[in-house]
């Protein structure tokens, strides 16, 4: 049989099958990859300003503890975490907001007016009123939050932990 100038039926079927297979593979494969890596691509931002009440609530020179909860959602599970922040209004009017989480092993520190210090009940870490180290195993001063005042209402900048 002389060679036909046209494509043979077998060639045509092979090409059509390969093309259809590639299209089907892409239609199924691309969503499949997206499905598998989706959680890695989701940006979860906990960054927010948390109102902690009117400025008048906070007397000068006395740390006041403010507690709040934040809910994090991972997939199908919601976790509620509690946070505590000591608000200190200084005599010059500036505000300090200190996390009450000890920088040693994350126990909650307590303000002791008689000692003028935050004391951690777990391993006896002591901090000054502005959060600096006095004594104990803690590696660094207490973490602080950025603050802002709008219409005499105080807010702290919560960035995730």
């Amino acid at each position, binding site marked *: 049989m002389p060679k036909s100038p046209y494509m043979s039926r077998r060639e045509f079927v092979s090409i059509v099958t390969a093309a259809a297979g590639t299209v089907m593979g892409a239609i199924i494969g691309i969503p499949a990859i997206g499905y*598998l890596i989706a959680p890695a691509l989701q940006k979860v931002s906990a960054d927010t300003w948390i109102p902690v009440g009117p400025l008048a609530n906070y007397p000068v020179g006395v740390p006041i503890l403010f507690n709040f909860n934040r809910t994090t959602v991972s997939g199908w599970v919601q976790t509620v975490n509690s946070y505590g922040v000591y608000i200190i209004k200084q005599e010059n009017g500036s505000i300090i907001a200190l996390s009450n989480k000890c920088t040693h092993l994350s126990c909650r520190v307590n303000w002791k007016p008689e000692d003028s210090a935050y004391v951690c009940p777990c391993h006896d870490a002591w901090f000054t009123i502005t959060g600096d180290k006095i004594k104990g195993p803690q590696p660094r001063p207490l973490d602080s939050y950025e603050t802002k005042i709008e219409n005499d209402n105080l807010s702290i900048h919560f960035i995730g932990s």
Partner: protein
Amino acid sequence: MFQKTFNWLDERLGMKTIYNTVLDRKVPKVNWWFTLGSASLFLVLLQGITGIMLTIYYVPSPDHAYDSIQYIMNGVAFGWLIRGIHHWGASLMVLIVFFHMLRTYFFGAYKYPREFTWVTGVILLLLTLGMGFTGYLLPWNQRAYWATTVATSIAGTVPFIGNFINQALRGGADLSAVTLARFFSVHIWWFPALIAGLIGVHLYMVIRLGISSVPKEED
């Protein structure tokens, strides 16, 4: 280069022989009804792949089953598509496998020497229905819960041993976390393993015996 590599591999794996045996078989002139077996096989693979994908996010616990599916539907890229394919593929599969059985029956393809192919096929049909039954509970919504309550109660009407069957299916007197866990286990491990093995036997016999032809007037 490619040809050389292929030949080296083929000499050891016998891929050409497999190809010739499986795909280059001599078949009688048949019609479109004879494609239902291949369609069933395709659907099994599709259900297997989408099912494996779903287990990445699905949690078989009453606390989280429903919420994890909500997450698949709304939180994950293309989750709705993967679950949708699995959902509709399940219904389609029961339909296609059933038509495959009807074709075999009406064309007399179950007769000598293919009786055993028919027997494995019947078991595969029952397992397909079993997959539908166990999979129906997994969303753990109202429909799933009550459908399984009704179905296991029906199983409980068997004389004498009904109550035992009912409790064995539920893993207790009522539907609970135990029921969900065992239905999940059966749905993703026990039945798929049996189905995979039986499809192997079923296909081996199809290849070994060849397929039957369309019955003619004189048959």
